[in-house]
């Protein structure tokens, strides 16, 4: 059972649609692994629905209803229903939706870039506001010491890691901010695969790390 959950303001922001897509992906994927937060989001949506009911109405233009009614005529195009994507044969069941759909292929077929003990795959490469990566930390290995300028949220998908703040298992979310000098260590028994979303560039903070800052960006 997950024990490191997203902050309640993150859950609320997800429920009302105020998170940028990378963070929303991380929170949504957590809720696939965490029935507690899944229920919380559903309750928050129920609250939002009730508050919507309470809003005082804003007048519509006079022809609003008639123009909508006019569009009900004619052949109804079946709205693209969110068909649940079936789990392909041999798919990684460690990847729940929505993450599986975003990656679109098996973990082993992703374009991993190996950088020392960590391999990564970039998601949303065109976004300037977040850095989003799937990380694979080699079992028993230590990620180079680094500091985050902004906030980093790391969701564990398989394996486990520890840092100065805790021990994180599948489904857990670790939070590191600029006050944390961060050195995650993967557990010994298997590689640790995580989804990490960082909202600003990350700099290596250790002496070797500073040297490696050109090549490494963790």
């Amino acid at each position, binding site marked *: *059972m997950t024990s490191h959950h997203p902050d*309640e*303001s993150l859950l*609320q*922001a997800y429920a*009302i*649609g*105020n998170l*940028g*897509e990378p963070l*929303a*992906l991380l929170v*949504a994927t957590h*809720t*696939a*692994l*965490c*029935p*507690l937060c*899944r*229920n919380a989001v*559903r*309750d928050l*949506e*129920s*609250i*939002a*629905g*009730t*508050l*919507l*009911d*309470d*809003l*005082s*109405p*804003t*007048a*519509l*233009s006079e022809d*609003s*209803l008639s*123009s*909508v*009614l006019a569009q*009900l005529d004619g052949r*109804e*195009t*079946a*709205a693209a*229903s*969110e068909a*649940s994507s079936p*789990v392909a044969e041999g798919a990684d*069941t460690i*990847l*729940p*939706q*929505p993450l599986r759909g975003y990656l679109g292929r098996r973990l082993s077929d992703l374009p991993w870039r190996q950088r020392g003990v960590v391999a990564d795959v970039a998601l949303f490469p065109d976004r300037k506001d977040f850095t989003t990566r799937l990380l694979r930390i080699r079992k028993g290995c230590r990620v180079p010491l680094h500091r985050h300028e902004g906030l980093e949220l790391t969701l564990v998908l398989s394996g486990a890691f520890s840092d100065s703040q805790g021990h994180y298992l599948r*489904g857990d979310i670790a939070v590191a901010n600029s006050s944390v000098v961060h050195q995650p260590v993967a557990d010994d028994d298997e590689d640790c695969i995580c989804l990490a979303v960082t909202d600003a560039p990350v700099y290596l903070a250790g002496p070797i790390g500073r040297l490696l800052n050109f090549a490494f960006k963790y």
Partner: protein
Amino acid sequence: AKYRPTPEQLLDLMMAVSVSRDRDAFAQIFHYYAPRVKSYIRSLKVEEKSAEDIAQEVLLTVWRCADQYDPQKSALSTWIFTIARNKRIDVARREKRPEIDLNDPALVPEGPASPDRAYDAAQVALRVRAAIDTLPQEQATLLRSSFFEEKSHSELADELLMPLGTVKSRLRLAITKLRSALEDMNQ
């Protein structure tokens, strides 16, 4: 114009739309929800014209996807809220909303400690409403702003001249109260 349909009445109208494609029932749903959806979208600082366009599109989706509405899963207001939320993410931010798939075999199922509760839509709506009505004024106001003005908790704190911790703890109190009104639903 103070007419406010009960959740049961709205549900009946929605069933008429879904099962018999009843246009009069749809018109009533439109009358009730379109102006509220427009208010919601306006509160997110979307300008008048495109707020109205979004409200119309939301109601069109209600008609077109009526058979996807499941009263066992959510109250009608909640379902319409989620359509409006997603439409606005799509229009204003050009993003998709990542969503779980409840039929995904990789989804971690509920355990005995945290069951996925079954919902009786009309009941949920009534309970949340009753619980909101018992909130102290200040908490209710904070709750509304935090849901509908796209302000972060720290922006709310600045605006209300309250410490961030106070905003967070009052909101937590309000939301916990509302959620606990739902907790004992199926016992």
